[in-house]
């Protein structure tokens, strides 16, 4: 069985390619997959007609109890025949339905076959979870099939509606399955059925499962999605909405009913909703003018009928249900296919416009007549056999409830007869006064599919006795009530026969009278659906509108308020405050601290950009001095360099921006900002105080000095931490730098020509790169500055390399070295402009960044290949001829990568914020 599912899957994947090669003829090939399922099903007849089962089991997700348990029993055998047979015939029919070269035909074929495969899987699943998987697959594929024409809004909307309704039901069903499976300890239905479940959860579980089944089968109050789904191409309706998908719910009811049919609320729920649906659907069908919609409402009505009959829960009603299931699939898919032919041949489906088709397309009329006769329940068709059985099942019942059911079924069948006549006469009869529509004679081979299905309906009726034999093992799993009934066309003169005659006469009378126009259904599920959907939309708007205000300051404000309230609350309430504070470590600290404080506060009040920038820079240098005092030379070095680089960058940009900040006049918001700022500052200070004071554990780094020397091969512990102990952090950090540099470049360079400039290639080319050594830059630069810069440039770069290599044992390292080299480039740029920069670094910043990242990552990966951990470093002492003993630590290569990334970052910034901004000049205001 799994093989067949896989065959369907492969065919579905191949279908688009096949359609591209062979055009619509490829659908013939595709139909082989469902036909294979049909053939396999027929071959298994001998194994299931005695009540046996065909089983397969494959392991899948053990922890979820999800296995691929496949099991073919009588009822699933029946469904396999329908799914395979109707599916194959509809695909063959589709070859003629779609015009040659139809857009999306490959997609259609693929999704159709995939749907057939999912449906096959669904009916042979024994594991409830697996069944759910296939169940939702059919939902998804049906969504794609209904929305076959995605350019039409009605298509999209009805597809979405069908998807939402059936998925909602499916989720409820999953809940029910889990309740069932967890209380039974297994998800295999055949095992659950052996020890029928009981207990308090059962009613809830069954209600949930039925919610899924009823929504899938378009039972009241979920009926509305099925008529809307008629936006689908007609072959899709013929398959999904007559034979396959809507039958999934009925199938589930039929499968589970044998075991849980006696438990609450199974029977009352099914009978009530089924009968209501039968009446409402039949009534609505009488009022339709669109043939396809007439059939759709008729299907709703019949599905209600089926659900009610299976819900009856006796052996006789189950037998009737199975027969009706088969009959309905055969006649309803035929009629849908006939409507498709009428639609394509005449261009309309409106029964008020069609006239004389019986004369003009006699074969089509005969095919439709055969199917309609089965639908109305004329002997000896399958529909008659099934309906007789249903009448008998409830006629010979015991309680008054059965009589009520019987009455409603009879009324529903009367409606069926009436809308069948409405369909036939509307589609085919001569109507005086109606002009004949143009007709393209349908090709004969187009009729093959519907004709086979229609004749099958006749054949099933004639072969009622063998059918009875095959189906009895299924119905025998239900409790027998009264004497056993057997399917047959002729039972002699009996109660059901009389009822059938009565129904036919009443139906004809109802057809003659016609449904009163203007009568509307009392309740339409579609309205509720729309109300719910627009309610969800409204809720989303309100929620989004309330939380997503679109203003950066207000977002930040909320975040910071939470910080103040949360942390502030904890600080005040829950922590002990340390009392061992000291004012300072060295008396220089408060002096520097005071400088920082003054600079920061003044920076906030500054009105000019440049002033603010310089003050921020001053506070930054102050922090660097704090680092020096604290005993952190590496930090201080880096901080000094970074502050300098930051100031250089800011000058580059701020020279373009207006001199003063644009001041906002609103005083209250400024007071609010300051208040929030002070509050956050107080909390941060208190946090520092409490956290530092509360520190009791021995610092992790106490062991670092020894480890740094023995494992890291370096004496500068901070550097060893960066390139060895916590190298992963550094790796992440340089990645961030590369990303930031890329972001800067893409914000400034927007066109491809501009990207060439990022590589240092001057565009346009008529501005030659300044030739020769020590030649002056063009424009108003200072010649002296430029010359001096060129003279010291190499020295600075050399110093940066010294910092890089000495960093392992003394202050320095990749960051500091890279920053120094970057500053050297910045000086060259400031002195001589973009040409000087290109002369100093004739490479694309992107290459430098990439090379840096590559070297760093490569070092780590090499360590891995060498059998060590990623980024582990090794110490190598080698003797070189000139240099003597060289103490080499492999992490130096990692640091070289860092160095390159930092240089690349600054080069990128200079090219972007410097050269490109210069080139773009001042825009017109």
């Amino acid at each position: 069985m799994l093989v067949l599912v896989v065959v369907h899957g492969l065919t579905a994947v191949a279908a688009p390619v096949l359609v591209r090669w062979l055009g619509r003829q490829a659908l013939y090939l595709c139909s082989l997959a469902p036909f294979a399922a049909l053939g396999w099903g027929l071959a298994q007849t001998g194994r299931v007609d005695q009540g046996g089962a065909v089983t397969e089991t494959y392991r899948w997700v053990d922890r979820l109890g999800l296995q691929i348990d496949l099991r073919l029993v009588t009822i699933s055998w029946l469904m396999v025949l329908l799914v395979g047979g109707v599916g194959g015939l509809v695909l063959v029919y589709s070859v003629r339905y779609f015009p040659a070269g139809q857009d999306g035909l490959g997609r259609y074929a693929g999704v159709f076959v995939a749907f057939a495969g999912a449906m096959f899987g669904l009916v042979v699943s024994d594991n409830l979870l697996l069944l759910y998987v296939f169940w939702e697959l059919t939902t998804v594929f049906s969504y794609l099939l209904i929305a076959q024409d995605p350019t039409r809004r009605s298509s999209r909307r009805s597809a979405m509606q069908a998807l939402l309704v059936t998925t909602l039901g499916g989720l409820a069903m999953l809940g029910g399955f889990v309740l069932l499976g967890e209380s039974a300890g297994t998800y295999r239905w055949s095992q659950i059925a052996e020890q029928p479940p009981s207990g308090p959860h059962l009613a809830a579980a069954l209600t949930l499962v039925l919610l899924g089944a009823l929504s899938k089968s378009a039972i009241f109050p979920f009926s509305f999605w099925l008529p809307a789904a008629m936006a689908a191409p007609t072959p899709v309706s013929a398959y999904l909405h007559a034979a396959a998908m809507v039958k999934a719910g009925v199938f589930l009811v039929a499968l589970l009913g044998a075991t849980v049919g006696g438990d609450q609320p199974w029977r009352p729920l099914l009978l009530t909703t089924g009968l209501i649906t039968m009446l409402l659907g039949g009534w609505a069908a009488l009022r339709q003018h669109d043939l396809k919609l007439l059939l759709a409402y008729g299907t709703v009505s019949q599905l209600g009928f089926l659900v009610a009959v299976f819900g009856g829960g006796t052996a006789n009603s189950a037998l009737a249900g199975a027969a009706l299931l088969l009959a309905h699939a055969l006649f309803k898919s035929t009629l849908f296919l006939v409507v498709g032919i009428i639609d394509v041949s005449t261009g309309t489906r409106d029964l008020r416009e069609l006239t004389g088709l019986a004369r003009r397309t006699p074969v089509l009329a005969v095919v439709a007549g055969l199917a309609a006769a089965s639908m109305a329940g004329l002997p000896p068709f399958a529909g008659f056999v099934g309906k007789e059985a249903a009448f008998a099942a409830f006629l010979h019942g015991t309680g008054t409830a059965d009589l009520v059911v019987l009455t409603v079924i009879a009324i529903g069948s009367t409606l069926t007869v009436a809308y069948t006549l409405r369909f036939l006469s509307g589609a085919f009869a001569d109507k005086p006064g109606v002009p004949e529509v143009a007709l393209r004679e349908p090709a004969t081979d187009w009729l093959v599919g519907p004709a086979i299905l229609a004749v099958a309906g006749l054949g099933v009726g004639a072969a009622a006795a063998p059918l009875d034999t095959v189906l009895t093992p299924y119905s025998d799993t239900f409790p027998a009530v009264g004497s056993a009934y057997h399917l047959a066309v002729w039972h002699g003169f009996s109660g059901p026969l009389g009822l059938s005659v009565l129904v036919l006469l009443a139906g004809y009378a109802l057809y003659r009278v016609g449904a009163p126009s203007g009568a509307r259904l009392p309740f339409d599920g579609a309205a509720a659906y729309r109300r719910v959907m627009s309610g969800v939309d409204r809720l989303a708007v309100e929620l989004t509108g309330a939380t997503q205000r679109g203003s950066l300051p207000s977002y930040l404000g909320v975040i910071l308020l939470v910080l103040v309230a949360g942390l502030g609350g904890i600080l005040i309430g829950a922590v002990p405050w340390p009392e061992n504070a000291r004012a300072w470590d060295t008396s220089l600290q408060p002096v520097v601290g005071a400088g920082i404080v003054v600079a920061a506060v003044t920076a906030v009040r500054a009105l000019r950009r440049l002033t603010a920038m310089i003050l921020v820079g001053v506070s930054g240098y102050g922090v660097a001095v704090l680092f020096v005092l604290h005993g952190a030379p590496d930090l201080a070095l880096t901080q000094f360099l970074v502050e300098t680089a930051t100031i250089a960058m800011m000058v580059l940009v701020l020279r373009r921006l207006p001199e003063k900040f644009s001041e906002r006049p609103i005083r209250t918001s400024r007071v609010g900002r300051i208040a929030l700022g002070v509050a956050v500052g107080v909390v941060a200070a208190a946090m520092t105080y409490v956290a530092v004071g509360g520190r009791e554990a021995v610092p992790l780094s106490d062991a670092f000095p020894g480890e740094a020397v023995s494992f890291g091969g370096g004496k500068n512990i901070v550097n060893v931490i960066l390139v060895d102990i916590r190298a992963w952090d550094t790796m992440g950090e340089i990645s961030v730098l590369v990303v930031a540099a890329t972001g800067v470049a893409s914000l400034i360079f927007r066109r491809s020509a501009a990207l060439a400039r990022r590589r240092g290639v001057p565009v346009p080319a008529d501005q030659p790169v300044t030739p020769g050594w020590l030649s002056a830059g063009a424009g108003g630069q200072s010649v002296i500055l430029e010359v001096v810069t060129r003279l010291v440039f190499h020295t600075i770069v050399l110093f940066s390399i010294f910092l890089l290599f000495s960093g392992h044992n003394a202050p320095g390292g990749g960051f500091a070295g890279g920053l120094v080299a970057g500053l050297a480039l910045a000086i060259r740029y400031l002195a001589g402009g973009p040409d000087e920069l290109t002369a100093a670094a004739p490479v694309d910043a992107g290459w430098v960044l990439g090379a840096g990242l590559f070297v760093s990552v490569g070092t780590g990966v090499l360590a891995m290949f060498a059998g060590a951990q990623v980024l582990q470093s090794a110490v190598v002492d080698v003797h070189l001829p000139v240099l003597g003993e060289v103490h080499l630590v492999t992490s130096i290569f990692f640091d070289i990568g860092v160095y390159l990334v930092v240089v690349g970052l600054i080069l990128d910034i200079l090219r972007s914020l410097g050269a490109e901004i210069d080139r773009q000049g001042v825009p017109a205001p």
Partner: protein
Amino acid sequence: MSPNLTYVVVVGVLVAAGVTLLLERSLTRVLMGIVLLANGVNVSILAGGRFGGAPIVGTTPDGEMSDPLPQAMILTAIVITLGITAFLLALAYRSWRLVGNDEVQDDVEDRRIVTLAEQDAGPGGDEESDEDSDDEGTTGP
């Protein structure tokens, strides 16, 4: 460990000044706010480590070294702040080129939704509008 009150005050002032600037709309001020905030947080981390001599083996005896671990963290933070600064500067410049100032604008789409919420309206768009037109084949007459 005993907290150093100088650090505590510096942290408080830097964070307060940083946040105040951060809440402004001018991107240049936001940027300076971030720089101040980052410095404040760095000092806060520094305060958590032991005070002492440079953590270089051979220069300072093991017991007298300042704690190197917070220093490595701060070093990383400093350089990342540099990257962020560059990025924000580019943003400010771009904003200035496009709209003539460097102020953070409210998100237009978000404002539209806020307006919709105030009008008690739905989101509109594809699935909501015009129930009646273009309904071919989905509902009865």
